[in-house]
């Protein structure tokens, strides 16, 4: 592909002139980015970034097992709802294992998380390579769940992802107040009678939902980056929580949009990598803008003080 060719392809896709299927995929993946950016703010502020990573990595054995079970029952192992159900169950088992390990094995929580992340991911890798040896002909797409692949996404998949992402965005909008108190001062919330553990559970459930629907487009290795990186970028630009949520959602959506268009342009490159690279670029720009603004604020405060 010559330079002019890929640029033309990219521009066509990014401006939604890439055909119906591409348009549906772009919109679905962008909604995913918006949901990821929004929930990422709360995962970041509640200091659950590492836990989110554990849960997303832990989905891999769930996908492998769901494929095997479905294939054994004679169903289509590659059906997206089946695989996502397996992924969700595996993430829940991982969360319970972390909780159990740090409580009863007297391990520091980060050690428990590290152990669960690597063991689950290792199990998933073994299962996936075993599935490749089965040569059922249906296993081809499974490895895309690791680094993401938008090219193989069907219109139905994109609809499912977009619809679930929209639901997550609605849930975050409704539960904003509850999430805020849990992130800022859970003990104060508890004294008022808010069930902190249950609200935490809802927060992590939304993280898992976004991680699971993001597996196909972004992949389990990088889906959490699509939550945390836009949130960290937004944090550089504002001290207002709702502005931060809006900015992070916007940045997540834009990163997913541009990344998905790049993925359509370069179908061989992993979509997750492209999307997260765009998000990383947005983060660097935000960091520079934030630092520059802070410097400017201090300088103006100083000159103001000197004048007074």
């Amino acid at each position, binding site marked *: 592909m010559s330079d002019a060719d890929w640029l033309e392809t990219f521009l066509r896709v990014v401006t939604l002139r890439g055909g119906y299927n591409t348009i549906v995929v772009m919109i679905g993946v962008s909604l995913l980015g918006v949901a990821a950016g929004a929930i990422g703010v709360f995962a970041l*502020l509640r200091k659950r970034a590492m836990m989110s990573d554990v849960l997303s990595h832990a989905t891999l054995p769930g996908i492998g097992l769901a494929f095997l079970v479905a294939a054994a029952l004679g169903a289509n192992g590659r059906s997206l709802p089946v695989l996502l159900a397996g992924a969700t169950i595996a993430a829940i088992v991982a969360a319970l294992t972390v909780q159990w390990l740090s409580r009863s094995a007297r391990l520091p929580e980060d050690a428990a998380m590290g152990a669960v992340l690597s063991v689950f991911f290792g199990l998933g890798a073994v299962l996936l390579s075993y599935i490749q040896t089965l040569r059922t002909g249906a296993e081809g797409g499974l490895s895309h769940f690791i680094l993401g692949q938008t090219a193989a996404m069907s219109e139905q998949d994109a609809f499912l992802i977009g619809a679930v992402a929209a639901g997550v965005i609605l849930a975050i909008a*409704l*539960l*904003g*107040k*509850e999430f*805020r*108190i849990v*992130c*800022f*001062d859970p*003990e*104060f*919330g*508890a*004294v*008022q*009678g*808010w069930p902190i553990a249950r609200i935490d559970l809802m927060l992590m459930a939304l993280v898992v939902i976004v991680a699971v629907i993001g597996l196909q487009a972004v992949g389990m290795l990088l889906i959490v980056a699509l939550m945390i990186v836009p949130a960290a970028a937004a*944090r550089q630009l*504002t*001290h*207002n*929580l709702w502005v*931060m949520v809006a900015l992070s959602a916007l940045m997540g959506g834009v990163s997913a949009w541009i990344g998905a268009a790049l993925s359509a342009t370069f179908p061989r490159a992993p979509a997750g990598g492209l999307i997260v690279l765009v998000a990383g670029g947005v983060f660097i720009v935000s960091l520079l803008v934030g630092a520059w603004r802070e410097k400017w604020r201090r300088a103006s405060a100083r000159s103001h003080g000197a004048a007074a």
Partner: protein
Amino acid sequence: MLWRVAERKDHVGAQTASAPFSTRALSVDYGNGPVVRGVDFEAPHSSLVAIVGPNGAGKSTLIKASLGLQRSSAGEARFWGRPLREMRKRIGYVPQRGSVDWEFPVSVTDVVTMGRYGMLGWLRPVTAAHRRAALDYLDQVGMADFADRQISRLSGGQQQRVFVARALAQEADLYFLDEPFAGVDAATEKTLVDVLRRLRDQGKTAVIVHHDLATVIDYFDHVLLLNGEVIASGAAKDAMTVENLQRAYGGRLAFLEGASGAAFRR
């Protein structure tokens, strides 16, 4: 049902029914021996109550266990004779200032409106009326000019005032404050004392973990002197005797006899 019958038989129970805050045989144990041991205590109506004792005496633990933030190993806390879950709306809380991240992206008003969350149900947003109430309470602690300020740009004393305004916004009848005077400037200390006295004059009760022995008798009506177990409790003047303080603090209090003995003999 069974415990209710048992309580009626116990006439001490009948007495505590009216106290805004009482504990019976309350103990907390993290597994390395009890931190709080069998505390029986009653806070009188319309009073400012200090919980005083050395570091590690279990002062904060007693409050947190009473408010359900930490698990108690035995005993119970009651509020107007009822269990916590029935009385939450009448209880305000000021946690230790260091317990939250002051870099959190919220404004002063945002923090104070959190005091209203207990009145709001699930999914109900904060309304303009709640924000107006928040401004009123900020004004009471002298922070009205800081309403839109980011909390990361407050001094320690200002942070404490915001926390107290948030508790006032709860519009409670019983307040718990955990070390509200720790590390604050003199102006803030005076403001907070005025706020607390106003609460008492409105018939409310405040239970305060306090560390400055020199001001206890000035600021408080009632004292619980604690060192794991109750050393003394009662009217501030009666409880704060040099003998009691020595029992609570042991050798660590040698300086008190000379330096501030006067403060305790008034």
